[in-house]
């Protein structure tokens, strides 16, 4: 006679334990998943902490600088959505299990990346143009009023977003979809460090060095300067461009290294978690 195990409410402790173990095994085998657990709380804490410091010391400033926040939000979205647009197009191939087909086709990595950059611009245009028009309608803030300055800002932000997108794509190729969450979260590391909503001087001295090593910092410093003081720091934009060239070269090099590593590890055919 078979002894029947009671399963209250249809719940099997054995099956629950098996699934917990399944996720635990997955988590401990995937450093991006582990990183994600501490990533959001750390970034949020840093950003709002610095903002609080800034507001405490400059309360009267907001009366004449209200447009800077809207401008900062819009420029931040160019940076963030540019990278997300790049990364999502890449992830589509992973989700569709199509990457193997592409890698055995004559498509070169540089062509693949170029296509992703174009798609990033297309997606950005679809998302951002209506939002900038809404900013005019609701707040009277015309981003396009920046003219050629906006072109300089845009060029630097989109270059950074592509560089980050390339890095993330390399990591996903090498580590599989377990690294997918980086595509959604890695740009937020720049949110506090690139000083999107506050000046670089708010940061501790040692962290200011880190901030000035990031190309978007120059844009987010330049934006209030043009809105409040009507001063365009062309030299700052050139410095940002120089940094972007270095960042882009590093991103491409790392991508090539990770792609080679993926070929060695056999992960191009196994694109799951």
């Amino acid at each position, binding site marked *: 006679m078979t002894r029947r195990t009671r399963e209250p409410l249809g719940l099997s402790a054995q099956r629950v334990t098996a699934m917990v173990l399944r996720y635990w095994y997955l988590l401990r085998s995937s450093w991006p998943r582990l990183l994600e657990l501490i990533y959001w709380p750390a970034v949020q804490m840093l950003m709002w902490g610095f903002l609080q410091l800034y507001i405490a010391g400059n309360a009267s400033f907001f009366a004449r600088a209200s447009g800077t926040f809207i401008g900062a939000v819009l420029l931040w979205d160019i940076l963030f959505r540019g990278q997300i647009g790049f990364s999502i197009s890449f992830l*589509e*191939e992973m989700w*569709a*299990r*199509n*990457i*193997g*087909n*592409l*890698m*055995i*086709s*004559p*498509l*070169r990595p540089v062509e693949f990346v170029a296509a992703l950059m174009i798609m990033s611009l297309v997606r950005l245009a679809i998302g951002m143009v209506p939002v900038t028009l809404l900013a005019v309608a609701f707040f009277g803030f015309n981003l396009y009023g920046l003219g050629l300055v906006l072109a300089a800002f845009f060029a630097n932000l989109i270059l950074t977003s592509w560089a980050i997108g390339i890095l993330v794509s390399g990591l996903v190729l090498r580590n599989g979809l377990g690294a997918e969450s980086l595509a959604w979260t890695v740009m937020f590391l720049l949110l506090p460090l690139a000083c999107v909503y506050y000046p670089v001087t708010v940061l501790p001295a040692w962290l200011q060095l880190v901030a000035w090593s990031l190309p978007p910092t120059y844009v987010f410093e330049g934006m209030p300067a043009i809105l409040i003081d009507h001063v365009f720091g062309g030299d700052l934009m050139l410095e940002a461009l120089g940094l972007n060239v270095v960042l882009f070269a590093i991103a491409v090099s790392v991508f090539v290294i990770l792609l*080679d590593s993926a*070929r*060695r*590890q*056999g992960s*191009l*055919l196994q694109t799951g978690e």
Partner: protein
Amino acid sequence: MHAVIEPAIAVDHLVKRYATGTAVAEVSFALSPGSVTGLLGGNGAGKTTTLAMIMGLVTPTSGAVRVLGALMPRQRYRVLGRMNFESPYVDMPMRLTVRQNLSVFGRLYAVAQLPERIAELAGDLDLCDLLDRPTGKLSAGQKTRVALAKALINRPAILLLDEPTASLDPDTADWVRARLERYRAERGATVLLASHNMAEVERLCERVIIMKKGRIEDDDKPGVLLARYGRRTLEEVFLDVVRGRGEARAAAP
């Protein structure tokens, strides 16, 4: 003096080791242009890894693969346009229609007169009614035909097939085999076919390479293998090799 014919695919002492073990160990073979060869083996025998190294998707730990004279993966772009691949382990974008998918891949392979080529393939592979349907909405058999159309879009000189009829019903599988036979006969392509399906290998292949635990256990014409093992079917030969010859004979009625 005999003219030396360069092999279409030359695999020389190929080894692939992962942290978890050796997937392919000292495998060597050469495939003549226009030949059809079956790569047989159980799960984990190293068939897919061998195919992946031939395509340049996986870098060998040691040894060398040459395809049409190009060293893989280093010189892959010299030959990738003349190769193609079909496998149940890769898909095409599901939300794109069949026509859109074939159009994308046709463009990747720089296929001339692409609309005509797609129409030709649609006729050959009975896809005319499916061309404007999303690929993800097709049945397994229909998806296999679409994958085959993608694999043939560039009229490849080298066609690599990884279990091309897996999960198909016998009728559809037979239909796919007939199309492959016809393509090979018309184009003189070199075909390397990894499969578990012995009837498929027996029907399509003039040479059979049997792998076990990453090594080549036997390699010959199907008729020679049948005679060597004293068997009537390749399936029996395969079981002899995989289980060990004496063990299989003991198991035989």
